[in-house]
Structures are given as structure tokens and as C-alpha cells.
């Protein structure tokens, strides 16, 4: 259809018909909403603010006991007159916010009075020279506290730099081995008789042979990561080897690392393989244990809690044992993960922050509340004899697993975390992958020697990182 004359053109006398109104309306809307935001009354800030990323931690602090009474923070407010606000923030968001707070040096910033930090994140906060670390050293407060002597000393190491303690540990996380007793019994294998890792591997091979002949050829004895080095690190720590020590000395080239790496690689690859990855994701791995795809896994106390949550049908079918060792001098346990609570250096009132920290983490009320929402063993040795930790656990066939954890807690190796730990662990993962590839292609011949060469290369690279980014020089 032909267009009418003039249609689609702008009349000469009115070059912008009606264009002003929408723009005016938009500007008006912007002004009104801006004013509304500015005029909004500010939310009154509590006297003390706590940032946490773990939901059970937030519940511990916020929730009233089920039998009535008031929450921990209300109790603190009642006794001191200081109101407390607990903010639950996703871990990555908390990390990013905290880092920008520490970097900005803005005195007006909304700094929390207490903050929870994960072990995987804490290294970067120790990059500055000790005096510039964004957290307040707690040594003075701890010296005055009667609880200092009760805290497991090895648990303070990950949160310390240059002798200064920057956080109170919330856990010990000793590592045990949980296995499917029903399936091992069916195969006629007594796994707990294995004292060393090589004996353990033999038992597992025997187990796999049985199930291969009885209709489950894909059933693996153990869960181990085939591409990440976290569980390899646990085995190294059993032998008191940290990839990086508290003085940033690189231990990657230690002969024990090559030896353990070579052993680990043939656990996850090649003809003597006994271990496989579980499905990534928090819940899936436990489903693999429930389905019998893997029949044992390394279990710090936090993993035991997840196991009950995600694989409830395993009740009565699983048992727990200490870790096998490489040598009689090794620890029959290790330590996996952890969190701390610290006081930011710019907290409004460090004295009040410490009082709250002491109440939440070290007081009997705080520990009792913690136990309500988490089965994690506390780092306070004097609490380990409490009745709550002595009873049998029906999920584990009545085995008193807390007592086992507590027996092992005193033996956990010291774990150091420095800014360079993350680089060293990345380098170890790369070498692990090369070793697994080597076992798949060439078997075990000369594996340890080859690994030693790769580790020396990796150590040299990590040393370059140390020399490049070290602020303490």
C-alpha cells in the first residue's frame, strides 16, 4: 500500500514532536526515586556486627535453644548491653568484601567487628607485612584469657603469621576413614586390620577382586581425587610435610613428597588402582558411597555430618577407622579444612569485639550452642571429656565416633597456611596429573624418580613466586 504523502517524515515546524515528554518523565522518575532512596531512614547499626559464611555458625549465634530461652547474641546483649547483628554472607562475597575493606583503608567503611574466614581463603590475607595484615593480632587477648592453655596449639598455626595469632580456631577437623562395613564383610575383608597404606591397598585389591567376580566390576574400594591434590596433601601431612612451611620454605622437593606422590598415583591409576573420584558436588559423593560405587572415603568430622545428611540409608552399614600410615612415626590422622573467627584491625571497639568472640567461641554457652547445630569437635582440649562426645553413634552401628575423633584430634599434624600455599598446591596438582598420566601410559617403573624430577621443577617455579610476591623481605 502506498504511503500517504508526508507519512514517516518529521514535520519541519515541529522537529521533535512529543520527544520532550518521555525524557522529562524519565528525569522526573529518576529524581523522585533518587530522593526516595536518600530520604529512606538508615537502618540502625547494631553495636557489634559479625560476618559469617557458614549457615550452622549463623544458626549457632542467632537461634534460641529449642527448649526455650534466648539466643547466644541476645544473651550477650543482656549481659553487656551491646546489641549484636550476625550477617550471613556467601563465602565468595564475604571474601571479596573483606579484601576490598582491607585494601581500601577507608576509616568510614562498614567494617565488621568479627569475621569468619575459611582456611582456603586465609593465605591471601597474610600477604602484607605482619603489621599491615587487616586482622588484629589476638596474642594479647589470648594471654589474658584463661582458655589459651586449652586451645590445641597445632590448631593456631594456620591462623598465625610471624608468631602473631590472627584468629580463634573453630574446629580441629581430624581425618578418619569411613568404610562400608556391610560390603567389606560380604567380601570377607577385614579393612581395619590394615595398619599401613600398602597393607590397606592390598586389602582393597582383594575387595575389588571379590566384587568383580560377584557382579560389580566397577565397584571401587576408596574415594580419592585423581586430579586434585587435596587428599594427597592429607597423606603428606600425616608425615609432617607441609608444602610450604610458616617461613615460606618450599618443601615440594622433599623426597617424602615424591615417594607419597608416586604411591598415590598408583592408587588412582594403573593395574593396582583402588580409588576413583566421586561425582563432584557436595551431595553426589555421598550418594556414590550409598550406591556402593566407592566403598570408603576420608572423613573429617564435617564430612561425617554430610554423610548422615545425604546418605541416611547408610545408617548402621558404615564404620570409621584411623588412617593407615606409611611409617610408625606418622600420625594416624590428618586435618582437612577449617575456619577461624578474627577481629578486623579497624573494628570499632576491639575490646568489645574480643569479649563477644570469647563469649561465642570459648564460653560453655557458646560451645553448647555450637554442638546443637554442628557435630564438629571443638579445639578446646578441656571440653573433649564432655559426656556428649562419649556416646555411640547409631549411624555408625553404635561406634562412638566422636571419641575416635577426639583420640585423633590431639595427634593432628600442624598445618601452615601462607600466601604461597595456594601456588604450591596448584603446582602439586599439576605434577599429580602428570604422574597419573605416566602410570596410565608406562606403569610404575621409575615412577618415583620421574616424580622427583617434576617436583623439583615445580618447586623452582613456586620459589620464583615466593621471590616475586614476598612482602616480608
Amino acid at each position, binding site marked *: 500500500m502506498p504511503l500517504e504523502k508526508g507519512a514517516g517524515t518529521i514535520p519541519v515546524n515541529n522537529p521533535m514532536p512529543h520527544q520532550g515528554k518521555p525524557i522529562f518523565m524519565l528525569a522526573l522518575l529518576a529524581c523522585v526515586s533518587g530522593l526516595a532512596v536518600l530520604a529512606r531512614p538508615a537502618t540502625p547499626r547494631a553495636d557489634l556486627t559479625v560476618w559469617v559464611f557458614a549457615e550452622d555458625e549463623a544458626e549457632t549465634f542467632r537461634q534460641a535453644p529449642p527448649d526455650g530461652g534466648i539466643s547466644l547474641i541476645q544473651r550477650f546483649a543482656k549481659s553487656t548491653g551491646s546489641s549484636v547483628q550476625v550477617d550471613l554472607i556467601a563465602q565468595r562475597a564475604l571474601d571479596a568484601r573483606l579484601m576490598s575493606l582491607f585494601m581500601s583503608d577507608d576509616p568510614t567503611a562498614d567494617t565488621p567487628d568479627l569475621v569468619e574466614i575459611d582456611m582456603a581463603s586465609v593465605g591471601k590475607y597474610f600477604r602484607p607485612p605482619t603489621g599491615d595484615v587487616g586482622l588484629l593480632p589476638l596474642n594479647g587477648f589470648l594471654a589474658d584469657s584463661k582458655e589459651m592453655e586449652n586451645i590445641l596449639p597445632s590448631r593456631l598455626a594456620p591462623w598465625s603469621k610471624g608468631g602473631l595469632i590472627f584468629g580463634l580456631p573453630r574446629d580441629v577437623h581430624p581425618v578418619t576413614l569411613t568404610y562400608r562395613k556391610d560390603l567389606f564383610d560380604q567380601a570377607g575383608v577385614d579393612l581395619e586390620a590394615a595398619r599401613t597404606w600398602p597393607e590397606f591397598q592390598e586389602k582393597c585389591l582383594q575387595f575389588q577382586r571379590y566384587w568383580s567376580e560377584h557382579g560389580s566390576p566397577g565397584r571401587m574400594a576408596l574415594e580419592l581425587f585423581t586430579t586434585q591434590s587435596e587428599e594427597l596433601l592429607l597423606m603428606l601431612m600425616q608425615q609432617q610435610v607441609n608444602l610450604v612451611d610458616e617461613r615460606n620454605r618450599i618443601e615440594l622437593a622433599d623426597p617424602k613428597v615424591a615417594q607419597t606422590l608416586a604411591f598415590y598415583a598408583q592408587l588412582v591409576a594403573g593395574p593396582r588402582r583402588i580409588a576413583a573420584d566421586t561425582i*563432584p558436588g557436595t551431595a553426589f559423593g555421598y550418594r556414590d558411597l550409598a550406591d556402593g560405587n566407592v566403598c570408603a572415603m576420608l572423613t573429617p568430622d564435617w564430612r561425617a555430618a554430610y554423610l548422615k545428611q545425604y546418605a541416611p540409608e547408610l545408617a548402621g552399614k558404615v564404620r570409621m577407622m584411623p588412617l593407615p600410615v606409611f611409617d610408625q612415626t606418622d600420625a594416624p590422622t590428618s586435618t582437612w579444612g577449617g575456619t577461624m573467627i578474627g577481629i578486623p584491625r579497624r573494628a570499632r571497639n576491639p575490646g568489645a569485639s574480643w569479649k563477644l568472640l570469647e563469649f561465642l567461641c570459648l564460653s560453655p554457652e557458646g560451645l553448647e550452642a555450637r554442638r546443637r547445630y554442628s557435630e564438629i569437635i571443638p579445639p578446646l582440649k578441656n571440653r573433649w571429656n564432655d559426656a556428649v562426645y562419649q556416646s555411640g553413634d547409631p549411624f555408625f552401628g553404635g561406634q562412638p565416633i566422636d571419641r575416635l575423633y577426639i583420640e585423633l584430634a590431639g595427634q593432628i599434624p600442624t598445618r601452615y597456611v601462607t600466601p604461597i600455599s595456594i601456588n604450591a598446591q596448584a603446582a602439586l596438582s599439576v605434577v599429580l596429573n602428570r604422574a597419573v598420566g605416566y602410570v596410565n601410559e608406562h606403569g610404575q617403573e621409575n615412577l618415583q624418580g620421574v616424580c622427583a624430577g617434576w617436583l623439583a621443577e615445580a618447586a623452582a617455579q613456586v620459589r620464583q613466586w615466593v621471590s616475586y610476591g614476598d612482602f616480608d623481605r
Partner: protein
Amino acid sequence: MTRRRAPYLFLSPLLVVLAVFFFWPLYQSLVLSFHTTAGPHTRRFVGLANYRFLIGHDRLFWLAVANTVVYTAALVLIQVPASLGLAMLLNQRDLRFKHSLRFCFFSTYLIGQVFVAVIFFALLGPRRGAMNEALGYIAGRPVDAGWLTRPNLALPAVLLAGLWMSIGYGMIYFLAALQMVDASLYEAAALDGAGRWSAFWNVTLPAVRHVLVFLVIVGTIGGFQLFELPYVLMQGPGPNYRALTIVMYLYSTAFDRGDLGYSAAIGWLLVLLLGGVCLAQLKAMGALEEE
């Protein structure tokens, strides 16, 4: 005078926003890349040392570059022809349900990278993953191809997810271009004795060339900026860092290691790399001459 000033007046709010939230931070990030930082009081000027260490010593950076380049090249080389082929198929007059089919193919683009990663995690996951289940059904025994755990399969798994998401997106652009082609050109080509291939080469391809250039450039930029898809699908850098991309490495350097200066240097190298690649592509495709 007022009419001459009016455009600047209307542009000024955007220019102010750009200056404050884009150009100023961009300048600051450039300055930051010449420093190494740790904490509020520790900011040490290191000149080009961040760049020198990155280029000369940092193997993980180069691994990330290699992964990103391989992913981007494979994505563009597969996505663009596949999108064009799909568009040509769905542009046929006598095809039934073509509107529904077009929506189906395009819909994969609407759901976002994180959700695509979750879907592919369910498809490619060990044991219970649909792909392994299907392979196991065919093989008659349990199969675990290790899509997410074998180093050699990590990048192909990410690529598969990327292609699933982006082919439909490219198809829509090609479809729009194909519908603009004058049908008489095909009639003239047929009269001149041109076969299907000759008509495609001499009529279709020149007609959709501008879309092709656009998709190659957009695909390259998207490939170099890859982050969420492998980050969620692999839950990290993947086995042996084979799914580590430049942006993932930048993020990890800034927020896992806390080295913002170094991470800014990675960002600026990415800008240079991406700018260079896009310029080379535009030149190779003759798009600059047209301008």
C-alpha cells in the same frame, strides 16, 4: 546554537556515567597493573615486572591462554558454519513447524551460562550422567568416560556446552540475513546455470557476510571472556587446569591469591590479546576496507 548543543546535553549524563564508572576505573586498573599490592599500606611500584613475570615465568597463565585460544577457535569454527547450516535448513519454505523449531534452537541461548553448566553437569557427570548411562546402555556394561575428570576431555566438555548454547543464537542472525536476500538473485543464478553449491557460494554467502563477520567477532570476544561455564561445570579449573581460562585465572589471582596488581596486568594483556585477534580477524575478512 541550542540545537547544536542539544545532542551533547542529552549525551552528557551517559558520558559522565561512563567517565566515572568506566574510564576512571580503567585508568586505575592500568595504574594498578604496574604495582604489586598487599593491604592498604603496601603498594609497591614494580613497573613492567607484573607483565614480565606473566609472560616470562607464569606457566599457568600460558596454559590459560592456550585453553582460551583453543576453545575460542573451536567455538567459532564450529558455531558459525553450524548456525548458518541450521538457518538455511529452517529458512526453507516448505518446512513444517519452522517457527517452533526456530524457537527451540534459539531457546538454549536464553537460559544463561550457569544454568547450561548445571545441565551439562547432569549430562556429563560420572556414572549417573546421562551421557555415560547412554554409552553404558550401548556397551552393555557401566561406562565412565570421565568427561569432567580426564584432562583431555575437559575442554571438549566445555566446548560442547558452549556450542549447545550458542549455535541457536548465531542461527537467528543468519536467518534474519537470509530472509533479506532477494529471491530474484537465486532465480537469476539458476538461469545462469548455477547449481546449489554455486548459488550458496555466490549469492548466499556474500549476502550474509556482514552477519558472519559480526558472529566471528562476537564469538571471539565471548570465547576470550569465558568464565562461568567452566567455573560451574568443572567446579574450578578442571583436571590438570585444562579448563582454566584467562578470565578464571584473573579472578583466581585477584580473589584467591589477593594480588590485585598482577590480576590487573592479566586483564590488560587480555585486552591487548583480544584487540589484536579481533583486528586480525577484521583485516582477514576484509571488513576494515569496507569501512
